[in-house]
Structures are given as structure tokens and as C-alpha cells.
């Protein structure tokens, strides 16, 4: 079936630094969503992309359907950015999302 390979599984950053998360897809996807799971376990929407890039504050995401990947860049990381980040992608037009395994981000002082 459709696979979403998310990396890294865990990431540790010092405050003020940045890094990128990546999802590779085994098939062509129509769109991708990025989420952060908060301390209560709720999924917070970060981005929805059908193509190109989007930016929101210190977060920026890109999606390349042809090359089968999406990235989430975090810059100037803050302590409150800590949490688990997920990508999820749609292969068809039915809205079915296939999730990655998540990246546990820890931001340290």
C-alpha cells in the first residue's frame, strides 16, 4: 500500500537553531498535511499543501509531488516547539490520509 517514510524519528535542537523534517512517499501523492501533536494528544494543523511551499512564522513547508517528498523546516526553535510532528499525505481524491510515524522534537535551552 501507500507508504509514508518520515525522518528523523527523533530530533534534538537548542533554542534558536533550526532543522528540517522530511517525508518521502512511495507513490505520487496529491497533497500533504503537517501536524503537531500537543501535550493533550490533539493534532494541531500546521500546513496543507497541494504543491509548492508555504510559510507561517518560523515554519516553512514544501511539497514536491513529482519527486515524492515533503519537508518541514523549523527555524529559531523555541521551547514550546517541542512535541511530535507528523506528515500525512493523500494519494487519491477521497481524502484518505496516510500518516508518517512522526518525529519527536525536543528543544533544549
Amino acid at each position, binding site marked *: 500500500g501507500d507508504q509514508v517514510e518520515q525522518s528523523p524519528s527523533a530530533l534534538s535542537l537548542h533554542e534558536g537553531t533550526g532543522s528540517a523534517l522530511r517525508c518521502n512517499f512511495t507513490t505520487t501523492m496529491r*497533497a500533504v498535511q503537517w501536524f503537531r501533536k500537543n501535550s*493533550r*494528544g490533539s493534532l494541531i*494543523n500546521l500546513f496543507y499543501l497541494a504543491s509548492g511551499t508555504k510559510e507561517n512564522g518560523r515554519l516553512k513547508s514544501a511539497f514536491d509531488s513529482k519527486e515524492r517528498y515533503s519537508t518541514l523546516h523549523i527555524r529559531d526553535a523555541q521551547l514550546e516547539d517541542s512535541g511530535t510532528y*507528523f506528515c500525512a499525505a493523500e494519494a487519491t481524491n477521497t*481524502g484518505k*490520509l496516510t500518516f508518517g510515524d512522526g518525529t519527536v522534537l525536543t528543544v533544549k535551552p
Partner: protein
Amino acid sequence: GPKVLQIPSHQIIDMGQMVTLNCDPVSNHLYFYWYKQILGQQMEFLVNFYNGKVMEKSKLFKDQFSVERPDGSYFTLKIQPTALEDSAVYFCASSPTGGAPQDTQYFGPGTRLLVL
């Protein structure tokens, strides 16, 4: 932002009994989804629902599962009878549209179901 509510937040039930999980989707959304996450595993798609019908379901959506949204009220997932392997967190989601182009799905906080 838009909020999806789920009731109850936790449910403990004996194997073989029926359980109904309730979802209050974002108003004016037309597409509804259920996902299942077993502890320590990936979130997985169960079913999506539009205009009173199931549009797509996964192999996880067993015959014991059913969904409905009677008269625009809660979007429900019913499991009858429950089995031990149904223990998981069930997430509801809704989106304004489901056809091309796709749109953002908003997720509820989940219902933690434990089947004993």
C-alpha cells in the same frame, strides 16, 4: 481555528458489548473521517463519509463497524460487538470538501477506547 469535538474522551467496555463513539465535526464541513491509532503504532485510516454514504473504507473497517450521521447530528462510529483488538484511540476528522482539490482535515482530540 475550527474545532472537532469527540465524546466521550475515554471509554472502557467489556468485550462483546456495543460502543458508539461520537464526533461533532466543524459546522459546514461536508466530509467526515475516522482514524484508528493503536498504542505505539501509526495512525491509520478507517473510513470516510459524505452525503450519507461511505466513500472509502480500509481493511481495518470490519463488518462490526458502522458509521452514520443522522439528521446532521453527531457523526458516529459504532462497533458491535467489540473485540479486544478494537482497543485504540479513535480520531474523528472533518473537511470542507473531499473532492479535488482536497482540503485540510481537522482532527478531534480522540476517544480512548479500552476493551476488556
